[in-house]
């Protein structure tokens, strides 16, 4: 936390670009829950020949795009925004919705993060001193086999968000499986971080300067 800002300037992916990069890794048939923020850009970038079923924890399986016009007040996503349904969509109550989540029936959950640790611990629900609210985040990271984090690589003060240990309250331990940032893509393999990709125009050195956690490199050109 006391590291000084890196000397070099770097420009990686935009927030949309992070979502676009992540969308490439979604496979046909995946059932995916998307958190607020960057994850909400993901549907824009899912290829037309890939069917990804979107889940909202308030009981919607098979979300479609936002409606044209007002929308139906009885049909909203977990962010209380109006939605539509895809063919084959199903509605459940909240207990069944979280049965899907906790029981491991989703494939991927995509969510933002305040911090990720070297072991894949996630902090994303509470900045001490601010207003605490957790929603379904703890269930999603506990139950979903693949937990993909999207975030800016450093915070607004330029401090690393990928740390040896999280300093903010945890959402879950050893739950993150991938991290997609503006600068890089990390996988969590056997409980340790592995840098697998730098964003276009970003060097491994620039990533290293902005990452406080230890990690190994396995870059695919």
């Amino acid at each position, binding site marked *: 936390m006391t590291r000084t800002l890196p000397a070099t300037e770097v420009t990686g992916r935009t927030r949309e670009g992070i979502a676009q990069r992540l969308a490439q890794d979604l496979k046909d048939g995946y059932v995916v829950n998307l958190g607020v923020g960057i994850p909400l850009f993901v549907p824009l970038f899912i290829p037309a020949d890939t069917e990804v079923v979107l889940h*909202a*924890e*308030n*009981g*919607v399986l098979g979300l479609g795009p936002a409606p044209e016009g007002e929308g*139906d*007040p*009885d*049909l*909203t*996503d*977990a962010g*209380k925004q109006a939605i539509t349904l895809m063919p084959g969509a199903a*509605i*459940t*109550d*909240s*207990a069944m*919705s*979280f049965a899907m*989540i*906790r029981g491991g029936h989703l494939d991927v959950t995509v969510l933002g993060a305040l911090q990720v640790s070297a072991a894949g611990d996630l902090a994303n629900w*509470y900045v001490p001193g601010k*207003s*605490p*609210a*957790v*929603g*379904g*985040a*703890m*269930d999603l990271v*506990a*139950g979903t086999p693949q937990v993909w984090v999207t975030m800016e690589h450093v915070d607004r003060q330029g401090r690393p968000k990928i740390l040896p240990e999280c300093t903010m*309250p*945890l*959402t*879950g*331990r050893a739950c993150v499986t991938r991290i997609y940032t503006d600068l890089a893509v990390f996988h969590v393999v056997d409980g340790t971080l592995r840098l697998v990709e730098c964003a276009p125009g970003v060097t491994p050195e620039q990533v290293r300067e902005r990452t406080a956690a230890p990690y190994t490199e396995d870059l695919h050109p």
Partner: protein
Amino acid sequence: MIDKFREDVLSVVDHVHDGASIAVGGFGSSGRPDVLLDALCELDRRDLHVYVNNVGHDFTGVGRLLHEGRLRRVTASFPILQEFYDEYFAGKVELELIPQGTLAERLRAGGSGIPAFFTPSGAGTMLADGSFTLRYSPDGGVAEHVPAKEHRMINGRQYVLEEGIVADFGFVKAHRGDRKGNLRFRLSARNFNPLAAMSGRHTFAEVEHLVEVDALHPDDIHLPGVFVDDVLLATPAPADQPLMERSAS
């Protein structure tokens, strides 16, 4: 003969006493039983413990209860409302913050005779380790923490023990309901409503449409009437409209 329909909301909600615990359906304003919640305000009930996912984003629904100082404790996953946090930090209302899936399962469990269950959600976090503040003191210090929850390793994984919620009352909203208390919800307005109904020792359901007893096919009922004690209209019918209708979905 069983007829659970009541025309007068206030005389029904009058059974709710000061200090009662209430499981409330809805997700944000979707499927929220506003007629029942407003009746609590008109009846000037206070010191309430509400189990609900969100307090809301304005001073309607549970937000109105908060705004009027009627809440002693909120058990929720995502309170949102800024005035709620102001009251919380001022020690005027207690917050038991729990994961959303845990809230759903605790309501279902309580209504199902399951006193406690293990879940991975929140294990090893401050929502389970006894460090989350339930109540602040007026000077800004911590008056009381949410008690630490039992943790257990099962098959190599850490879980936390959560208790079923049996609330004094359940407040729910449905799209259609009949005089036997059978309910059907519409789209994502279903959410916590069946669970809040199960959790309540005594449950009120406000319905958008009162339908005849054979209008809901037995396979189409989302919540059987056995969980509902009183059925009310979500919107009192205008005088020129028949009370009973058979509406399409």
